[in-house]
């Protein structure tokens, strides 16, 4: 089995080989229930992801960026956090959002074109708004970490970012600031091999995790399709941050099985054989093989999760498609905390004009 091109170089931290055979210590401090829950989340997430692609094809979502193949990197990271820890995501972390308790229907308002940013409550869920301008969420994660540390709160902040986004200035500025302030945060790069049509090798000539050294923080390269390894590595980084040990940069090697988004045609730039080869490294098959061999999982439980995933996807679909366009008033609703009088006048005139328009000429 030939791993994806961008996995070359330094061997990542790995607990399970791609076929599920342990090659490291599988005791990561989770009881059987906790171990099973990692698999259950991955099964639910993958089913929902596929439902979203279908919803887009049926015109129920505008554009959807799928995460198939990246379930372990996201679920492993999210599961390693404490209840008060906070995540600042990119636009591809629906699996992490599920684990953190974000309502998927609210989340998907974004991709339905119903509302921007965080139509769920970022404070209540500890999950920041969906962030599309690449890398710009990373300084937010670092600032949040600096803020909670100033308050003496026991909170660790995770910032997700993609391989392509590490080319932006904001990545460098965030990582450097985090290190000099010893901010309690973990920067998780999901290196899925592609940034739209640009492969990792054309994005960066070195290994991403190694940059940590230049910033003066620990860096780790982990097999991002090995959920146990991701869980352990993130857990260690979170604990270090909690103890005042500062930030960690984690490069999780994974693979983007789908196109960049439903608007993208990956066949224009990517050999389909590469995708077929990458499927041999599937994170769910690897983990359930080990769980089963270790006696933590049986056929019936797996089948029950699959049924649960079916119902879950069906419920999300049903609730989502009910969602009509928001009222015109939302255009003006949350722009200012203290709306200036000029703004109020424009609001009134605009809503009147739009009302007239709806009434017809």
């Amino acid at each position, binding site marked *: 089995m030939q791993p994806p091109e961008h996995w070359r170089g330094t061997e990542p931290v790995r607990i399970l080989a791609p076929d599920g055979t342990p090659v490291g210590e599988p005791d990561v401090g989770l009881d059987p229930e906790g171990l099973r829950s990692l698999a259950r989340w991955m099964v639910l997430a993958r089913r929902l992801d596929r439902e979203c692609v279908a919803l887009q094809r049926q015109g129920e979502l*505008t*554009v959807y960026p799928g995460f198939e193949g990246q379930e372990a990197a996201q679920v492993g990271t999210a599961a390693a956090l404490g209840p008060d820890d906070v995540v600042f995501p990119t636009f591809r972390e629906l699996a992490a959002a599920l684990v953190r308790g974000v309502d998927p229907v609210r989340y998907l308002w*974004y*991709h*339905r*074109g*119903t*509302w*921007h*940013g965080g139509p769920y409550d970022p404070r209540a869920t500890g999950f920041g708004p969906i962030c*599309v*301008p*690449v*890398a710009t969420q990373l300084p937010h994660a670092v600032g949040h970490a600096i803020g909670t540390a100033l308050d003496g709160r026991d909170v660790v902040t995770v910032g997700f970012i993609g391989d*392509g*986004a590490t*080319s*932006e*200035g*904001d990545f460098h500025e965030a990582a450097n600031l985090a290190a000099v302030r010893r901010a309690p945060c973990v920067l998780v790069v999901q290196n899925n091999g592609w*940034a*739209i*049509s*640009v492969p990792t090798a*054309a*994005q*960066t000539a070195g290994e991403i995790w190694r940059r940590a050294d230049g910033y003066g923080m620990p860096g780790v390269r982990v097999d991002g399709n090995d959920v146990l390894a991701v869980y352990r590595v993130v857990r260690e980084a979170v604990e270090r941050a909690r103890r005042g040990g500062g930030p960690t940069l984690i490069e999780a090697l994974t693979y983007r099985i789908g196109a960049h988004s439903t*608007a*993208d045609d990956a066949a*224009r*730039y990517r050999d389909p054989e590469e995708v077929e080869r990458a499927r041999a490294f599937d994170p769910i098959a690897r983990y359930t093989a080990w769980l089963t061999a270790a006696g933590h999982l049986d056929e019936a439980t797996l089948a029950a999760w699959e049924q649960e995933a079916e119902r879950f996807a069906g419920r999300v679909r049903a609730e989502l498609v009910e969602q009509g*366009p*928001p009222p*015109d008033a*939302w*255009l*003006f609703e949350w*722009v200012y905390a203290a709306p200036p009088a000029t*703004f109020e006048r*424009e609001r009134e005139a*605009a809503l009147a*004009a*739009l009302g*007239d*328009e709806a009434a*017809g*000429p």
Partner: protein
Amino acid sequence: MSAPIATDRERGTAHTMVGALNAALRDAMRDDERVLVFGEDVGRLGGVFRVTDGLQAEFPDRVFDTPISEAGIVGAAVGLAFAGWKSVVELQFDAFSYPALEQVIDHVAKMRSRTLGRVEMPIVLRIPSFGGIGGKEHHGESPETYYVHTAGLKVVVPSGAIDAYRLLRRSIADPDPVVFLEPKARYWAKEPGELTVDGPGIGEAVTVREGRACSLIAYGAMVARCLEAADVVAAEGLDVRVVDLRSLVPLDDDALRRAAEETGRIVIVHEAPKTLGLGAEIAARVMELAFDHLEAPPVRVTGWDVPYPPAALEERYRPSVARIVAGIRRAVTY
């Protein structure tokens, strides 16, 4: 990889704006071997809108993908200009031009002046812009005011395929930096005609419909909407002029003056928010140029002063035909 979608000029068929822009880049690179094309996904993929489709195959050394680094891309274009290269850079979407603003404002726009005219910046920044395609957040913004407000830049916006070809060729040939804003909503609209550099240049507006009752002043995708609105009121016997600005910097003062003198009533239409949008500048200019000829205060039909909304609300934000018609009525009944 699929075949290039560049339109075949010889066939004289209808062109999409994407095809016309592709042809303009290809022809410019054939004519001038100092022209480079680079940016995110412009090489192998041919751009997320396929504007650069097939160019890398024809010019392997002069068309390349960059890392996702807008500030670095535009900064490199400045350095390349020092080395005598002419860069045509693609910034993938309106809002993703913002990380490069520092380079654009501090260097691209000012380098000529800072070097006493010794170093020119023949750079073209192509930015797919404006709304109307049901895009996500950050994919529908109107960034023109940021650029228009920066002295040293020229700013152009084509409204159709034929003019897109001409304007892009003119922009690449221009010794000054040009911000080239492409209305995504018009990318796939077809227009028959010949692709040629001949015709109106940068700084010249074009009257696309004659009329005396009032003048609609617009650019980009709003030109087509203004023509629709003009048709609606024509049915009531109002003949409305439609002026396609094409060039936001420099503005065509003569065309603005003529519109004010000959119709007396000015309606400005754009998607950008009202406050400090182009409408503010045009209203001020027509008052300076032809105050005595105005029969009514200039009317602005614009996006609201709010963040660009999600897809479900974007047509409640962009000026609709109905809102333009209402603007015409306000101007003519004043």
